[in-house]
C-alpha cells in the first residue's frame, strides 16, 4: 500500500462542514482535560461557543473583543497582500497606544471634537513611525522585514514598560500604569451600558477602506502585483520599493489605530498588558481570512467569539482560565489544519502497480 498526497481542492459543500468538524474534533481532543478538572465537557462546549451568542449583552461583548482583532487582522492582511511580511503589528499597536495616551493626557478641558481626532491621528502616526524603520531597512538594505518587525515588538513592549515604571507611573496607586486620559479623549459608547465604543465603527470603516483599495484602485492592483511576483511587477514599470514602503506604513498605521482604540475605548490609561498579543493574533486572522478583508471580518469575529467563550468557560465551571486557553488554542489549530488540508486529497494505492516495464 502506498499513500499519495495530491493537490485537489475539496468541493464547496465541504467548506460548510469545516467549523462543525473542527468543533467536534476540539471537543474530542480536549474533553480529557476538562474531565480531569472535574467539569462536564458538554457544558464546556456550551459555555465556550453557545453562551456568548445567547444574549445581546454577551453578543456585544464579542464585538468588543473583535474590535482590536479587526484592526490588526486587516493591517496584517493588507501588508501580506503587498508582499510585505509585517510581523510587527504588536509593536506598532503598543506605540499607537502610547502616543494616544500622551495626547489624551494633554486634552484636559478640551472638547471631544478636538480631542478625538487628535487621539486617533496620533495613534495612526505612531504606528506608522514604528513601521518606518524596518520598512526602510527592507527597501534600502534588503534586510528581511520578518526579523526586524518581530524584534521591534519587544523593543516597543519594553519601552512601554519603562515609561510606565518611570515617568508615567500612577502617582496615587504607584501601579505601573499611566494616569487616566482626559474625559474628552475617551471614545463615546455606541450602546449605553455596554463597552462597545467608537473604535468598532473605525475598525469597520478601515476594513471597508482596505477592501476598496485592494479591489478597486490602481494602487491596490499594483501592490498585489508586487506581492505575487515582485520581478514581474518591476518589469511592468511598478515602483516596487515605493509600493512596499507605502504598504508597510499603511499597515503600521492601522495597527497603531488599534492601540489608540484600546486606550481610548477600553482602558482609558496605558497599561503593560494593553494587548494580549492582538498583533500576533492578527497574523492568524489574516491567514484564516485568506488575506481578504471580508474573510478577515469573519475570522476576527470567530476569534473574538472563542476569546469571549474561553473566559466564560473558566468563570462558569470554576476551572482555571488556562483551560479556556487550551480550548481556544486547540480549536484554532484544528481549524487551521482543516483549512490547509482541504486543499489536498490522500489517495491509497496498491504498491504492486509498477510503472511500465
Amino acid at each position, binding site marked *: 500500500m502506498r499513500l499519495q498526497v495530491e493537490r485537489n481542492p475539496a468541493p464547496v459543500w465541504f467548506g460548510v462542514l469545516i467549523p462543525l468538524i473542527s468543533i467536534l474534533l476540539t471537543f474530542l481532543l480536549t474533553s480529557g482535560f476538562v474531565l480531569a478538572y472535574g467539569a462536564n465537557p458538554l457544558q464546556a462546549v456550551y459555555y465556550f461557543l453557545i453562551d456568548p451568542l445567547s444574549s445581546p449583552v454577551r453578543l456585544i461583548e464579542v464585538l468588543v473583543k473583535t474590535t482590536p482583532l479587526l484592526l490588526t487582522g486587516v493591517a496584517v492582511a493588507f501588508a501580506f497582500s503587498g508582499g510585505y511580511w509585517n510581523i510587527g503589528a504588536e509593536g506598532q499597536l503598543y506605540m499607537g497606544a502610547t502616543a494616544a495616551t500622551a495626547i489624551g493626557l494633554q486634552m484636559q478641558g478640551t472638547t471631544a471634537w478636538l480631542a478625538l481626532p487628535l487621539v486617533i491621528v496620533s495613534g495612526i502616526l505612531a504606528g506608522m513611525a514604528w513601521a518606518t524603520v524596518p520598512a526602510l531597512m527592507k527597501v534600502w538594505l534588503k534586510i528581511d522585514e520578518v526579523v526586524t518587525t518581530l524584534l521591534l515588538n519587544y523593543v516597543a513592549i519594553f519601552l512601554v514598560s519603562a515609561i510606565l515604571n518611570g515617568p508615567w507611573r500612577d502617582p496615587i496607586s504607584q501601579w505601573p500604569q499611566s494616569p487616566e486620559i482626559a474625559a474628552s479623549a475617551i471614545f463615546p459608547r455606541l450602546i449605553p451600558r455596554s463597552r462597545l465604543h467608537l473604535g468598532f465603527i473605525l475598525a469597520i470603516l478601515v476594513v471597508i477602506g482596505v477592501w476598496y483599495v485592494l479591489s478597486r484602485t*490602481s494602487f491596490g492592483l499594483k501592490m498585489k502585483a508586487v506581492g505575487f511576483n515582485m520581478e514581474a511587477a518591476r*518589469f511592468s514599470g511598478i515602483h516596487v520599493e515605493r509600493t512596499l514602503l507605502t504598504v508597510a506604513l499603511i499597515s503600521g498605521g492601522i495597527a497603531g489605530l488599534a492601540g489608540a482604540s484600546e486606550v481610548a475605548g477600553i482602558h482609558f490609561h496605558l497599561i503593560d498588558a494593553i494587548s494580549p498579543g492582538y498583533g500576533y493574533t492578527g497574523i492568524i486572522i489574516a491567514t484564516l481570512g485568506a488575506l481578504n478583508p471580508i474573510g478577515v471580518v469573519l475570522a476576527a469575529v470567530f476569534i473574538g467569539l472563542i476569546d469571549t467563550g474561553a473566559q466564560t468557560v473558566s468563570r462558569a465551571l470554576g476551572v482555571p482560565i488556562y483551560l479556556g486557553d487550551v480550548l481556544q488554542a486547540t480549536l484554532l489549530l484544528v481549524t487551521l489544519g482543516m483549512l490547509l488540508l482541504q486543499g489536498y486529497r490522500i489517495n491509497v494505492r496498491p504498491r504492486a502497480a509498477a510503472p511500465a516495464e
Partner: protein
Amino acid sequence: MTVDLPHAVAMRGISKRFGTVVASDRVDFTLRSGEIHALLGENGAGKTTLMRILYGLYQADEGQIYMNGLPVTIHSPKDAIRHGIGMVSQHFALVAPHTVTENVILGMSPGLRLDLRQAHEAVRAAAAEFGIQVDPEATVRDLSVGQRQRVEILKALYRNARVLVLDEPTAVLLPQEVEQLFSSLRSFKEKGFSVVFISHKLHEVMAITDHVTVLRAGRVAGEVPTRDTNPNELARMMVGRSTIGTTRKPAKEPQSLPALVLEGITALGNKGLPALKEISLSVQAGEILGLAGVSGNGQTELAEVLAGIRQVTQGRVLVCDQDVTNATPQRMMAAGVGRIPEDTRANVVGQMTVAQNMVLETLDQFSQKGTLDRQAIRRYAETLIQDYQIKASPDDRVRTLSGGNLQKVVLARVLTQKPRVLVVAQPTRGLDVAATEYVRSKLLEQRGEGAAILLISEDLDEILQLSDRIAVLYEGKIMGVRTAHGASPHELGLLMAGVQKG
C-alpha cells in the same frame, strides 16, 4: 539492437513526455568506458532530462538503459548510485554548516556510532586517490563554489561511482577553477571512469571531451568524435540549419532615422562579471535587426538593459534621439519601447487575471483619481482577446494559459501601445507551430508599420527568416553585422562560435 560490451552506459530509444511537451524523443546515447562525452544543446533541448532519467530522477516513458551491456532498471537515485552512477547538478545538495567529511559520508555511515577521526581519514584518502584538492575538516559554508563542486564530485566517487554526470559544471566557475576541473576530469579518464559533460559552451566541449552528442528539441541532432568536428559544425547542429525559401516582403526604403541606438554598452551579469562588452548597434525604423548567438552570451542581459531592469556601467542608450540610459521601465515605455520578455511566465503575474495583466503596464489609462475603471478594463481585455485570437476569458488567471496564449497576451499588451521600438527576446521558444507562425507574422506586421525591432533569438532559422540585418553576439561582444541577403548560415555559425574571419 546489439550493444557492445565496453559501453559503460547505453540508452536506447529513450522518450519522455511532460504533458504534451516531448522532452526526449527516441534518444540514443552511448557512453564508452574511459571517455569524456559531451552532451551539447540549447536550453530546453533535453540534455538535463536525459541525464535525470539516467540518474533515476525521472522515469522514461519508453526505452531501455544498458550498463556494461546488461539491461538495468533505475527507479531512483538510490538505484543509480548502486549501479555506480553519480550526478553533480547545477544546484549543489550540500549541508552548509557541516564539514566536508560529514557531507561526503552523509547517509552512508554504518551503525549508530560515528568515528569522525576515522571518517576524516577515509575522506582524506579518497580525496588524495582521486586528486581532488579539498580539506575534509573544512566547513562547507566557508568554501568557494569551485570547492563545493569538488565536494560534490568527491561525494559521488566516495559512493563508488564509475560514471560521473556533470550538469553544466563550468557555469558557476571562474576560469582558473575551470582549468582545475578539467585536469581532474582528465585524471578520472585515465583511471577508467566515464564522464558525461553537459554544456552549451562550444570551446569547453572542444577542449575536454572525446565524443559529442548534440541534442536539439529533444532529438539527437548528431553524434561525432570531438577530433572530427569543429565549433562551427557543432553550432549549426545545435541551432539547426536554415530553411530555404522563406517569403518575406523586402524592407521598405530604409528610413534615415535610427530609432534605437546603443553606444558602447557595458553591463555586468548576475555574478558581477562583465556580460556585455562595449556593444554598439543601431536599429532603423521599419527594420528587424536579428541578434543571433548561442545562449548565455549576453542576450538575457541585453534584453534586460533595454527593458529598464539592468543598469549599464558604460555607454548610452538612445530611443528616437532621447537618452534613456539606465532609465526605469516606466521611462522606457514612455519613450516608446515595447518589451517582449525572454521568460514570459516570469514576467507576468500568474495569480492575476488576463485582464489585469493586460493593463498592468498602463494602469493610468484605466483609472480615474486612482480608482480603476473596471468596465473599461473588461471591454479592453475583450477587444484584445478577440483581436489577438487568445483562447481565454478576461477573468482567467494568467498562469492557467498555454504558452502560446500567454505570449499573445503579452504581445497584445505591448503592441496596442504602438511602440516605436520593440525589444523581443526568444519570442517563440516553447511555442507550437501555429502560435510560432502567429507571433512571427505579428512581428513582420509591426515592421511594416515602421517599428524598429531588435529580435534576440537563439533560433537561427527564426533570425534568418525575419531579419533585415543580423548581428552575432559572442561572449558579450558583437562579432559582426551582416545583411540578411549576404549572410550564410555557415558564416554565422563561425561567428557564433567566436571565430572571426581575418
